[in-house]
């Protein structure tokens, strides 16, 4: 049997890659092609601009350049590592096809090796596509030395995947299979958010501190006493077109990946039973049962919070949104210390807090309302549908308001009225976004949400519009223009009323 034949190694690898890139296609074929063409144009356009700048320079292998390149590579490597860790845990724990594959005539070792390769292809492809515009543009411009970026990036992807596989194994061994899934999502979210935080880090400092920090970093880079041929600079030299370094780098990366893939396959082949048995969270048996707490509203809220807290994907999404709030919080607290904000900035802060709160509430209401695993149970209960909806709304909005209150309190320290308008705006925006979700989202099983992770278009558009309007109203009120805030507030109420009138009718 050849490798390519039906049931061969490449057949299995093809299957892995197909699964990794298979996404839900809602759009028509024409629209999809148009979107791909647009994306291609953007990638090529940005790549052309970057290539135009790069091609003017001959890559130089001096320590300051190597340090800057190493920092950039480390940044991309961190992103790749996060991506690889999530892809590795997803491939092992969440795809749910291991029982089928391991019961097939393939050896478990083959199955797991192919799975590791699939992760590598998945990670590498994402970044290769991103730099494809740059690569093609450099080739067109004849900047041959810079073309080393391509193979060096593939090497980096292999290395990151190897690291991701090692990390997955380490987590599996130390905290167990279930917690590994949660940890991978959380780490992935942090790593993903690092781009945003990296770009926003300047806001953590005052203006005078920013210049000092930049100078300090630059001077430190010039002072570094590492020779250009040091092993530390191997990846940077590879990316900058040093042929020997490129060969050594890609070989080392491939070797490390092979070792990781081999170890991963061995490890998970032995632990296949543990992976397949991933299910019940077993606790030490206790004869004593925890007391029940009653009340319809409390029961619904408690159940929703439990389900939210046990959903690693959702938690990582919320964590990301919270991380995005960090720069804002820093600005507020630093400025409150300086007394350095003006009324316009209060408005921006207040509006942003209201918008982020509404966005968080929309994410949570999407889960509490739409991902109802037992809709018949809830419908069959002697409780008004509206009481159920109120419970779900409160479950989604309450944690958001607790967080928004922190931001509003910070703003309130500088300007009391700005703080008051902000918490009022955040509350109204969050409840409005939640209500739109309650009115317009279709219920479905929670387990299906990974496959169709989008709420209805009406809910999405409605939430976006209402959020923007309330954020505008909050911003205007917080900046001292309360009379003007009436205009977006009336618009928001009008949209809300229209959405309420067209709400989904129960079957």
């Amino acid at each position, binding site marked *: 049997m050849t490798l390519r034949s039906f049931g061969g190694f490449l057949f299995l690898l093809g299957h892995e890659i197909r699964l990794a890139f298979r996404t839900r296609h809602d759009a028509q074929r024409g629209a999809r092609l148009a979107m791909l063409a647009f994306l291609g144009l953007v990638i090529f356009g940005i790549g052309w601009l970057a290539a135009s700048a790069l091609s003017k320079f001959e890559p130089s292998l001096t320590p300051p350049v190597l340090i800057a390149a190493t920092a950039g590579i480390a940044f991309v490597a961190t992103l790749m590592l996060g991506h690889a860790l999530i892809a590795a845990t997803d491939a092992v724990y969440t795809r749910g096809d291991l029982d089928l594959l391991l019961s097939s005539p393939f050896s478990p070792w083959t199955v797991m090796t192919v799975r590791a390769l699939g992760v590598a292809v998945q990670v590498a492809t994402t970044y290769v596509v991103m730099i494809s515009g740059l690569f093609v543009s450099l080739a067109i411009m004849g900047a041959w030395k810079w073309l080393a970026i391509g193979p060096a990036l593939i090497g980096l992807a292999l290395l990151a995947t190897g690291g991701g596989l090692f990390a997955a194994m380490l987590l599996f061994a130390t905290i167990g299979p279930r917690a590994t899934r949660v940890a991978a999502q959380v780490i992935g979210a942090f790593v993903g958010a690092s781009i945003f935080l990296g770009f926003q880090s300047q806001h953590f400092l005052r203006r005078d501190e920013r210049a000092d920090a930049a100078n300090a970093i630059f001077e430190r880079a010039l002072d570094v006493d590492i020779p250009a041929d040091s092993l530390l600079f191997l990846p940077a030299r590879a990316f900058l077109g040093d042929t020997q370094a490129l060969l050594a780098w890609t070989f080392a990366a491939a070797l490390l990946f092979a070792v990781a893939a081999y170890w991963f396959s061995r490890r998970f082949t032995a632990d296949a039973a543990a992976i397949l048995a991933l*299910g*019940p*969270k*077993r*606790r030490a*048996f*206790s004869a004593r*049962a*925890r*007391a*029940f*707490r*009653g*009340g*319809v509203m*409390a*029961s*619904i809220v*408690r*159940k929703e919070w*439990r*389900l939210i807290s*046990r*959903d690693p994907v959702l938690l990582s999404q919320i964590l990301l949104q919270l991380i995005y709030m960090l720069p804002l919080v820093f600005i507020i607290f630093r400025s409150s210390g300086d007394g350095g904000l003006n009324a316009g900035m209060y408005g921006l802060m207040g509006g942003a807090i209201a918008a982020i709160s509404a966005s968080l509430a929309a994410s949570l209401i999407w889960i509490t309302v739409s991902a109802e*695993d*037992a809709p*018949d*149970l*809830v*419908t*069959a*209960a*002697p*409780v*008004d549908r509206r009481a159920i909806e109120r419970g779900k709304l409160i479950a989604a909005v309450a944690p958001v308001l607790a967080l928004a209150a922190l931001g509003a309190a910070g703003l309130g320290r500088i300007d009391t009225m700005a703080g008051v308008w902000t918490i009022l705006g955040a509350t109204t925006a969050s409840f409005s976004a939640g209500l739109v979700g309650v009115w317009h989202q279709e219920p479905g099983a*929670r*387990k299906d949400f990974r496959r169709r992770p989008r709420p209805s278009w009406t809910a999405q558009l409605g939430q976006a519009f209402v959020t923007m309007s309330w954020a505008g109203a909050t911003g205007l009120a917080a900046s001292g223009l309360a009379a003007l805030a009436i205009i977006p507030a009336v618009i928001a109420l009008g949209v809300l009323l229209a959405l309420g009138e067209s709400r989904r009718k129960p*079957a």
Partner: protein
Amino acid sequence: MNAPAAINPAAALSLRGLTKSFGEKRAVRSLDLDVRAGELYALLGPNGAGKTTTLRMVAGLLKADGGGIGIFGVDAIADPKGAKRITAWLPDEPMLYDKLTAWEYLEFVAGLWGVPPKVAKARAQELLELLDLWQHKDERCEGFSRGMKQKAALAGALIHEPKLLMLDEPLTGLDAAIARQVKDLLQQRVRDGATIILTTHILEVAERMAHRIGIITDGALVAEGTLGELQARAGAGMSLEDVFLQLTAGARQSEPAA
């Protein structure tokens, strides 16, 4: 269409002229049915006969197009909340939350039905022990076998001690030991005064457990009575299977959609 006759207030479940259509298809056709208090009633019929649709209307999950539903004298259409308070519905696919433990699930269901916490806790413990789930009370339902899920869902259905319990294919996919446990529990509930309606494709279950059997086909009740009455009606030496096949032959030939 003539107005349906009044519901029977003495019956545990009284259906009068109950009708439901899905587009062109008439799933339930002016169904009249009385289930007596304290009996176990088996509703039989081929796939797509309208059994589940009927029970879903009684449980308040589907709106009837016409007719009346009375549950222990409570008009389920005029007062759905009052009716739901005394009923429980257990579908063939257990209504569970994968990420909740069995104990948390029962706490939630008890909260929905407004059972006082202390009473609910005692009942939950009793039910879980009775169904051999006590050791698993702190495990999430996602790891349960089909039988364990069905038992956890049954415990949820019983936690508010419903007067009328409706079960759709409760024994499908269960192994012999678990099926026996479930059957024993249901019979015990009937002895304690509860009324149970179940649909099943396992005729032996209806033969052994049911006080009365109704056969529904194409949305209408075509026969009803005790096992003996049905056998007598079909002819000497006929088994329930023979009776069932004879009465549903027409429906099976036309193969209605499920």
